[in-house]
């Protein structure tokens, strides 16, 4: 989803116009997954498949969050451990640990997540902009947020930033 769509959705909620504010149309779908206690999401158009963790071949001379490469039906795909990428402690892989493979502008990567949760609709009324945070590191990868029931918040990742940022 483009940033313009998000801005528009946020603006609608905040506008005085009741009709606009009540607009709760579906903008798309996200797949949600857990990392620790937090629920994250990725819009489904970027997701190609979900696979279990198999043997990952290490590759030398890459940052530590790139765990290596795997063979997904004869395609060689690099694997990023989201935990390490976000600076969270590494935990051993369990039966729930999954690799979500993404495709963004023909760049394929897999990300390791603790467990996959759900696929749900994005409603206009639930969107919140990502907090403006001067601390660049933490919210760099969050494009926007979705408010759920019981005051939960799902952080939707910006795939472009996740894949594209340059290694310093």
């Amino acid at each position, binding site marked *: 989803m483009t940033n313009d769509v998000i801005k528009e959705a946020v603006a609608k909620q905040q506008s005085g116009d009741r009709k606009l504010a009540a607009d709760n149309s579906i903008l798309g779908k996200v797949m949600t997954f857990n990392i620790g206690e937090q629920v994250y999401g990725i819009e489904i158009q970027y997701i190609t498949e979900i696979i279990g963790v198999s043997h990952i071949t290490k590759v030398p001379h890459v940052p530590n969050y790139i765990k290596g490469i795997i063979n997904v039906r004869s395609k*060689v795909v690099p694997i990023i451990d989201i935990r390490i990428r976000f600076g969270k402690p590494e935990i051993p892989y369990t039966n729930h640990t999954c690799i979500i493979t993404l495709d963004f502008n023909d760049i394929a990567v897999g990300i390791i997540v603790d467990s996959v949760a759900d696929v749900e609709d994005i409603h206009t009324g639930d969107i919140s902009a990502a907090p403006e945070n001067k601390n660049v590191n933490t919210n760099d990868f969050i494009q926007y947020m979705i408010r759920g029931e019981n005051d939960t918040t799902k952080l939707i990742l910006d795939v472009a930033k996740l894949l594209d940022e340059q290694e310093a």
Partner: protein
Amino acid sequence: MAKIEPGMEAMLDMYFFETNSLLEQLDEILLRTEQANAFESDDIKEIFRIMHTIKGSSAMMGFDNLSVLAHKAEDMFFVIRENPDVITDVSFVYDLVFQVSDSYKAQIEAIQNNIGGEYEQMDFDELTSKLIKARDKLNSEASGDAAPADTEAASAASSTAPAAAGGSDKISVRVFFEEGCQMENLRAFLLINTIREECSFLEFSPADVETNAESSKEIVDHGFLITFSANDDRDYILKQIETALNVQSYEVVSGDEAKPAGTEAAAPKAEIPPEPVKEIKTEKTSPAPKAPEKSKPTDQSIEKAQAAVANANAQQAASGGAQKQSLISVNLAKLDALHDIVGEIITTESMVISNPDLEGLELESFTKAARDLKKLTSELQDTVMSIRMVPLAGVFQKMNRIVRDMRKKLNKDVEFVMEGEDIEADKSIVDSLQDPIMHLVRNCMDHGIEDDVQDRIYAGKPEKGTLRLSAQNSSGEVIITISDDGAGIDPDKIMDKAKRMNLLTKPESEYSEKEIQNLILLPGFSTNEQVTEFSGRGVGMDVVKANVEKCNGTIIVDSKKGVGTNFIIKIPLTLAIIDGMEITVGDLVFTVPISTIHESFKVEPEQILRDTSGNEMIMIRGVCYPILRMHEKFGIDTEITDLQDGILLLVESNNKSVCIFADKLIGEQQVVVKPFPKYLSRYNIKSEGLSGCTIMGDGSISLIIDTNTLIG
């Protein structure tokens, strides 16, 4: 700036393909005939035809400047053709036509690079005025020597004579073009031009096809009526009409009854007589060859282009009809896809055959079936490989042209010898070799061959220099040698320069002559004081080296001062499948290309030497090799760290050798090389000794060692 006309994009591919191959043909003819400084009548006809086709198709595509240029060149050749006996000196024509061909290539490239966008329309005014001048010059020469009659009259006279001899009546033919082929009027015009030279009398209707686009409609509705009488062979003209591009069918509407019962009588009767005019005979245009083209709706533009080329051939050779069937142009992307699939089949096959579930089972019929499968897949692989193989001749021919130009510009008398141009290599390799070879040829011409003929005479060499470009096959590699018998490389000069540029990495005295010569391959190295049009900017030799190495090749300089220089390029036949030795380090599997391995062996602790800084080395048959521990190099955890527990592999690349230390050998396997995923390309993996990866029989991934960067 100009834009490609909307609706024309679909035909662009075909246009580029056709025009480029015609230009190449033109170059070839010119190079062949230049030596004799005279055109054979067949050659002139051929050039004329090429110019015609280019003119017509350029006009059709809306590239007016190109069309005008071809038109002027055609005019010039018209004069030459009509006065073959009078015009003797045509040497200045060659340069002119080469210029035309170059301008064409440049403009086409500009258009190609901006498909969909705007492209710069080049200005050919200067060239066209040159062409006009040349034509006038030829004209005056012709009319001066010949009868006072002007050329037109002369041509008319000359062509009526054989006509009378041939004895032919007028014949009318109604031509129908393929449905939906567009631009019928220009196609008709092209057709007229094709047959014009064979006809003593020629009329056609509608008559304004060249200028009036509206005439297309009439042609579509009623066909294109041509009335002609042949110079000598009417069947030949009919054949030309029949094989012309996009002609669907034609019918003879009037003419002779006395026609010999040759081809037409034997041919099957027509299926579609579109308009029942006073029809005498109709026939279906092309018998077998064109049928598949119509029935196959796939990739029409390419097939059409193919047909165009086949057409060109058809007019050259009598056996043209057969060629249509035996050649087909295929999009390279499709071949790549096929190649990938075959690679995957081979991987999957070994996954099945060496499946761990089968271990320890006695499976007699399975083993037999597996063996058959293996045989078939390896045949499949060979066939796919051979499809991608193209001869080096295409690249070599282009060098011919470069040598010719430089010979003139530099005023050096050089004989250019080509050998082994029929040797084949993978298409992608041949493509990537063009630039390096071109650069080396230029270097040899510019720096290699002596500037002053006197220098050659003093050195006891023949006045005429020799530049040799040869290719040969040897054990899975193609060896391309570019050699000259010029001044050779002066090692002292190189050393001086290298010292000044701070390119030396060890004390001067330790450099062997071979090493000094190979210094010229380093970036930023150019000893030529004078930067010329052709070479000497210092970029180049290192780019040559990088290009060659990109296709896993190597380049060696071998030169002797005063005797000459050889550049030797070695490249593998194909890129994608290599024989590899699998080794393990910790839990990682690496693949070492077998071609780089000299030997593998176990060591005893007492064989190990250490230098002052503690680097390990080993002495083998009197030569000392450094030891490279893989687990240290790639930061892998392994239990085997004592040299005597693991295994050493002596590998060599680029004349440098090293012993790599691994845990153990697994065995030999053919592997399909896959590049690292795009996402990883930003990291420095490739320069650290890994060239790619491969998927092994059990589905796991092995990393392929690049001995070149591993050592360097």
